[in-house]
């Protein structure tokens, strides 16, 4: 009976008990990681209680359906998960650097767990929530909307993602995560070879997060189609919104194969199915196809929003219109479409005919065309501008240069001839980190620096921001350039130890790079703390700290809960620049109207918690618990459909008071020249350019 509710979970599965029974270095590291997690959770609970933050946390954040707050929570979740995954990267490199001398730090299976969680977390629980958070915060503001089309669904997506994160975190304390890598190929992850709970943790974490992302894609696409303010034609959307649209389309179509592949793998493992079991009519090659049918569009889900951010950064910090807007739109769309035609390049070496490989290789290289166009459009955006190298711009220019290298190695890998030689090698690992660190991660850091004032009302401290850059930028090079070389010399990914002593210096270099990236993350935390302390000097209540160009900069910082007091007028791609030029940006409104906003709801939190519990129960084969939790999810969904009072009204008077208060802040602010935008004089009002 207890088995129905606890499944296969036993005391021995607790990491601390494992350490108690076998106290070696490997189990000590596992127990320390689990201990850190438990301590972190306990410390957070104590802090919340002592400070009395439970109520505000519940009322203002967890139950909020405000797209801005949901966006901020996504980013916060991503940063927490980043801390774990980058620490894991450090442990792995330290292990590899010391391994051939003695046993190294961790056991081979533990090393495999580390690379599996590192990849799974970085893709699904760092990169995805980061960009989903930024998109959530920025996109509705940029199109002049008050919220996304489905605010409740938006919060449910967040809570499903958080549940996935929770599941991966719990695997630190209870049992083990998968050792099959982030791509989880059977037959290795099948029940015969990996019988434990590991692959099931991986399966259910991916299932939760992929469902969350599918819903996000639908939500954002509909928002972009239906919620644009009057005058915001598709071809007046800021480029970032175009990239959000393309990403959303990719999310809708690309996440489904992943959800299916993981569920089919679960059926193979536990229900006697044979989708991927050779010998019973199944075929493991189908898993590779399904996984990369998701996996390749996923690459562009990760990079397109970054391209959008770079477009905003180059234009804003050059004080100039984006060059080649139409080119960039078409290039983005071209990439989105082509991304569905290239998945096979992830397994050129599976033995199919050369013609098939050549076709997919050429399709892959075609993506180089729109990508190359983008790079030059950004370069020309800076031409004839007034370029100022603020933190986002440092990241952006660093990205331009390193992205060239990533592009070249990408074209190399697109050639089956070369891929046969470096597939599965550290060369490949260097390539995709080359795209995802300077591309996605640095874009999201630039985005955080750019839009932080709009979220919290004050700028981030510039000096500490530069410290983040000067730690992470060389850190990336140090960590990954050696991997290109080792890969070309036959060093393979996922290798727990290299017996060749000549690899040792580069492994130490890579470890040093990983330490620098970790230090850069620490600098980011310090930067946030310092900025909060100095928030009065960094405050920009008038709302426009960077002489912004698109609608999100219209209005105060932090933004109105309802985003805009009235309907902003849009006559140009750079809608806010046009308003400022016409002297209409800070004008009083004649009339104000009541505004309907979504009412807070506990439904998303409950759904997230129940779905997380159901997934956890599935991992441990606790069928009764799983069934109850799953039924609970649907009971909540059905119950919610009877709630008819889902909106609350913000009266016109309140809107008017807020709007007037902001205009008073604007009147009190002195317009600053861009030269002085880092000084306390910058209260968020930009000087009229000459």
């Amino acid at each position, binding site marked *: 009976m207890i088995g129905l509710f606890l499944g296969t979970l036993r005391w021995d599965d607790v990491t601390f008990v494992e350490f108690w029974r076998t106290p070696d270095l490997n189990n000590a590291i596992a127990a320390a990681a689990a201990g850190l997690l438990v301590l972190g959770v306990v410390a957070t609970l104590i802090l919340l209680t002592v400070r009395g933050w439970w109520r505000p946390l519940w009322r203002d954040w967890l139950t909020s359906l405000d797209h801005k707050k949901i966006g901020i929570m996504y980013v916060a979740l991503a940063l927490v998960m980043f801390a774990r995954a980058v620490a894991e990267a450090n442990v792995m490199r330290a292990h590899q650097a010391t391994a051939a001398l003695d046993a190294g730090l961790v056991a081979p299976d533990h090393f495999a767990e580390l690379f599996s969680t590192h990849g799974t977390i970085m893709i699904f629980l760092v990169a995805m929530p980061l960009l989903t958070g930024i998109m959530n915060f920025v996109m509705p503001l940029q199109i002049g909307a008050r919220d996304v089309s489905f605010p409740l669904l938006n919060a449910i997506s967040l809570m499903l993602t958080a549940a996935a994160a929770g599941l991966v975190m719990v695997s630190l304390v209870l049992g083990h995560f998968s050792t099959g890598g982030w791509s989880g190929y059977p037959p290795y992850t099948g029940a015969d070879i990996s019988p434990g709970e590991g692959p099931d943790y991986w399966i259910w974490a991916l299932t939760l997060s992929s469902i969350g992302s599918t819903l996000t894609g639908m939500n954002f696409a509909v928002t972009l189609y239906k919620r644009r303010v009057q005058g915001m034609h598709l071809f007046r959307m800021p480029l970032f919104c175009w990239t959000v649209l393309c990403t959303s389309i990719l999310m809708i179509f690309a996440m489904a194969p992943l959800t299916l592949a993981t569920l089919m793998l679960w059926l193979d493992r536990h229900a006697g199915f044979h989708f991927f079991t050779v010998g019973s009519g199944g075929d493991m090659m189908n898993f590779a196809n399904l996984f990369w049918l998701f996996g390749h569009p996923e690459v562009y889900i990760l990079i397109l929003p970054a391209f959008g951010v770079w477009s905003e950064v180059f234009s804003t910090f050059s004080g100039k219109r984006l060059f080649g807007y139409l080119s960039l739109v078409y290039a983005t769309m071209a990439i989105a479409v082509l991304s569905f035609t290239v998945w096979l390049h992830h397994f050129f070496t599976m033995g199919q005919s050369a013609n098939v490989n*050549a076709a997919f290789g050429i399709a892959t290289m075609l993506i180089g065309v729109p990508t*190359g166009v983008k790079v030059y459009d950004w370069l020309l955006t800076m031409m004839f501008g007034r370029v100022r190298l603020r933190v986002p711009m440092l990241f952006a220019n660093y990205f331009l240069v390193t992205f060239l290298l990533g592009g070249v190695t990408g074209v*190399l890998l697109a050639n089956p*001839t070369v891929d046969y030689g470096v597939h599965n090698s550290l060369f490949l690992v260097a390539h995709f980190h080359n795209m995802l660190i300077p591309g996605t991660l640095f874009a999201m850091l630039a985005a955080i620096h750019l839009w932080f004032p709009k979220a919290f009302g004050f700028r981030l401290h510039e000096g500490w921001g530069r410290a983040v850059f000067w730690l992470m930028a060389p850190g990336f090079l140090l960590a990954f350039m050696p991997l290109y070389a080792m890969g*070309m010399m036959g060093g393979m990914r996922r290798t727990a*130890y290299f017996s060749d002593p000549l690899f040792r210096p580069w492994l130490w270099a890579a470890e040093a790079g990983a330490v620098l990236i970790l230090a850069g993350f620490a600098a980011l935390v310090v930067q946030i703390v310092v900025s909060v302390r100095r928030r009065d000097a960094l405050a920009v209540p008038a709302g426009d700290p960077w002489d912004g160009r698109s609608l999100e900069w219209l209005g105060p910082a932090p933004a109105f809960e309802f985003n805009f007091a009235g309907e902003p007028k849009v006559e140009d791609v750079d809608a806010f620049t046009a308003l400022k030029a016409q002297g209409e940006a800070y004008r009083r409104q004649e009339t104000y109207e009541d505004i309907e906003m979504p009412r807070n709801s506990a439904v998303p939190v409950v759904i997230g918690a129940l779905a997380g519990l159901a997934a956890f129960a599935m991992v441990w084969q606790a069928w009764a618990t799983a069934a109850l939790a799953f039924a609970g999810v649907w009971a909540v969904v059905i119950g919610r459909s009877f709630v008819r009072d889902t909106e609350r009204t913000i009266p016109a008077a309140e809107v008017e008071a807020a709007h007037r208060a902001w205009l008073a802040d604007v009147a009190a602010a002195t317009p600053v020249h861009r030269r002085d935008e880092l000084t306390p004089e910058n209260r968020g009002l930009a000087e009229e350019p000459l």
Partner: protein
Amino acid sequence: MTPDRILPTCLLFFAVGAPAAAQEQGFLWAAGPVAEAQRAHFVSILWWMAVVTVPLLIGLPLILWRYRLNGGGGRYRRDWGASPLAEVAIWSVPVVVVGFLAWNLWHATLSLDPYRPLGPDPLEVQAIAAEGHFLFLYPDEGIVTVDRLLLDADRTARLKLTSVDVLRSVMVPRLAGQIYAMPGMTTELNLAAFAPGTYAGLNTQYSGPLFPEERFETEALPETNWHARIEATRDGAGPLPPDVLQRIAMGDGAEAYLAADADLFARIAAPSSHGAHR
């Protein structure tokens, strides 16, 4: 060092320092026709890509300097957002480069198909990838070697690959690229060496805790030595036990066996031998 080795050597040198350039491993130090073609293809792509990358590397610092906010001498045109001439250039140059690269790719991919024989009358070898070890069966010679592939340097070789339990990928980097070895399936890889020598081979696909040890030596011997070696191996070897895989896994295996069991590879590569029912 031949002139055409200079570019990759320089690349490695600048990427990671002198030790890399001194270490002869991987396809950049090709020791066979396929790896040599890979290396040449690799370098040709670098040259083609320079057409796109070099202008940006030159233009970026110039633009950053000339159009900087404080004291930059460049003209400020804040509404400059389109230029038909520039747009045509930035679309057409990548199109032309990718066009050439695509042509290049098509021919290289077809001519270097791992399934394509590299010469007449190849040496036939059956490779079985198992946990921690590789078995090489020579059906015509009637022997089996463990973790050592004996090639005749004057003859090309054709490997048939399969794996016992999980997905693996077999490669001898200095001779040719890799192909997956999959349970219940047979794939093919053709190999050839320019000259006698010993070349490292390995599994590149994570397969479990013993993954780092899944390596083998490829010995390419001059023809006469090869024959002598095969003879000597045959003389010194015992019969292949039916439970050879278990024995090797237990550390109880020999370096070579006589292959009385001609069907071993076919049996392991047969779909029906895998995961039928738990």
